């Protein structure tokens, strides 16, 4: 596959994932569309362009690992796992319902392909670090990718973990920040100013790559290039738009955690279907 063809294929995957994100949240009647849509290109790039993994062998020892620290964006992960073939697409309509493998926040005991349960914010990077340590002890070449939200970087544990990865030279872990600038109560900078996320990670000893979070070509590059310096962990700060792909959700913190009504769903799906048909670009 040529590079351009690979990029186009991933964009098409991301477009389908966006459609399914809105569809499953609408069906559930609750959920978090904004931060799921903002992360769709990142997660599609990881699952279909970067990570070594095999849906038929979720426990394959040398698979690359993914930890969704921003667990409320479960729908983007569920869409990717369904798209990859970890489970059937029909499961998506059971999201958040009694007995579903797709819990409101990812549950590793219920769903294949989920490495660890998340949902309480700020905890994913520490877990990813522990996984990376174990892989290094076992001389396992697999890598650990951890997707964080920018809002959750207000949690102190994120910075405890950031210090830890640099101190222990965990260059087999990668932190990816879905930097959409919004959280439940409004703009991150008005709720609790984050300052420069990239600058802070740099100061904590990470190699920082800033990238447009909806540019698959750039994402692939940032997510695949090895660390410039051995032993220095890489953080990718991806600038994204919350609610990306649905005009009335884009850039609106109000769509952090609510489902669209019937009318809004029709409109959103029409827009996302258009992106699908238009080759996603």
């Amino acid at each position, binding site marked *: 596959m040529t590079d351009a063809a690979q990029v186009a294929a991933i964009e098409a995957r991301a477009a389908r994932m966006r459609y399914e994100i809105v569809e499953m949240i609408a069906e559930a009647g609750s959920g978090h569309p904004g931060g799921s849509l903002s992360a769709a290109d990142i997660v599609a790039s990881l699952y279909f362009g970067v990570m070594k993994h095999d849906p038929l062998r979720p426990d394959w020892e040398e698979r690359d690992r993914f930890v969704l620290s921003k667990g409320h964006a479960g729908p983007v992960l569920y869409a990717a796992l369904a798209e990859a073939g970890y489970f059937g697409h029909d499961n998506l309509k059971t999201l958040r319902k009694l007995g579903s493998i797709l819990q409101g926040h990812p549950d590793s005991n219920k769903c294949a392909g989920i490495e*660890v349960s998340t949902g309480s914010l700020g*905890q994913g990077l*520490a*877990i990813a670090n*522990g996984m990376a*340590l*174990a892989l290094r002890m076992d001389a396992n070449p697999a890598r650990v990718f951890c997707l964080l939200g920018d809002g959750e970087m207000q949690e102190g544990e994120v910075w405890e973990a950031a210090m*830890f990865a640099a101190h222990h030279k965990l260059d087999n872990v990668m932190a990816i920040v879905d930097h959409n600038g919004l959280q439940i109560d409004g703009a991150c900078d008005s709720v609790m100013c984050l300052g420069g996320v990239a600058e802070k990670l740099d100061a904590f000893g990470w190699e920082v790559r800033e990238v447009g979070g909806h540019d698959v070509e750039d994402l692939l590059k940032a997510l695949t290039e090895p660390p410039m310096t051995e032993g220095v962990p890489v953080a990718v700060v991806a600038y994204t738009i919350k609610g990306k792909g649905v005009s009335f959700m884009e850039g609106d913190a109000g769509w952090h955690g609510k489902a669209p009504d019937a009318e809004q769903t029709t409109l959103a799906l029409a827009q996302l279907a258009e992106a699908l048909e238009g080759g996603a670009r």
Partner: protein
Amino acid sequence: MSEKRATREALGETLVELANEGVDVVAVDADLSGSTTTAKLAKAYPDRFFNVGIAEQNMIGTAAGLAVEGKVPFTGSFAVFATGRAYDQVRNTVCYSNLGVKLAPTHAGITVGPDGGSHQMLEDIALMRVLPGMRVLVPADYVAAKAAIRLAAVTPGPFYIRLGRAGVPVIYGDDYAFELGRARVLREGVHVTLAACGVMVEQALAAAEALALEGVNAEVLDVSTIKPFPAEQIAASARKTGAVVACEEHSVIGGLGSAVAEALGELAPVPLARVGVRDVFGTSGEPAELMAHFGLTADDIANAARELLKRKK
């Protein structure tokens, strides 16, 4: 009952033994490896020890990741920080994912001594006991602590092992094996049951000696597994003796006393007394002084038993 050793001494030593035996143990500590004794593992196996610095939430999270990948992580720090500071990490990451993280913090209870109330954890059993999937062990001596650590290392899922700072008499022989969900009968009796855990086992045995001089034959149980809880065993003893004193170096709310009350209430209602810290924080002092100050001595247990005997039908 001659030799005294702190239960915390069992941690580092047992981890080294387990590593020697090929068990894939690792330790994660938060700048307290000398006090918790995980430094012993760090010395023998530097690659199996990780210091997170003063960051207990990160300690639990990192250990969780190690457990995801099949390691057998033990975490250190003091009981107050490992359970209180990192409670959400223990709940949402360790227990909700059902990960095999073995919390073995030290310096639980008032026998921490002079460091005072901020460091004397009296609510940890309560906090850990309510978490689904968590097993809660409170070993009474060094031998039991070693056995508890060994059991946790080879049993899948999360464990909480409560270890202490102060020396306590070694009451068990080397043949001791920890039985999950079973209390150990240290003394058979018919008039009153003294159900104790941790450092209170020594006090309960002394109380039984004193009561015996008065013709009161007390049964002494070492209830080292708070969860799973030996409810039926406690109830059977209560049916025999007709009265129970629960003895713990912990708040009377939520710990062993509560577990005993729940079991008796459902299975064998008899008069109950709870000897423990009565809903207050600790304070500075030497361990023995504090045991007297908070009413946790053998005399206090014996007095509680005498009062109970008056209430027995």
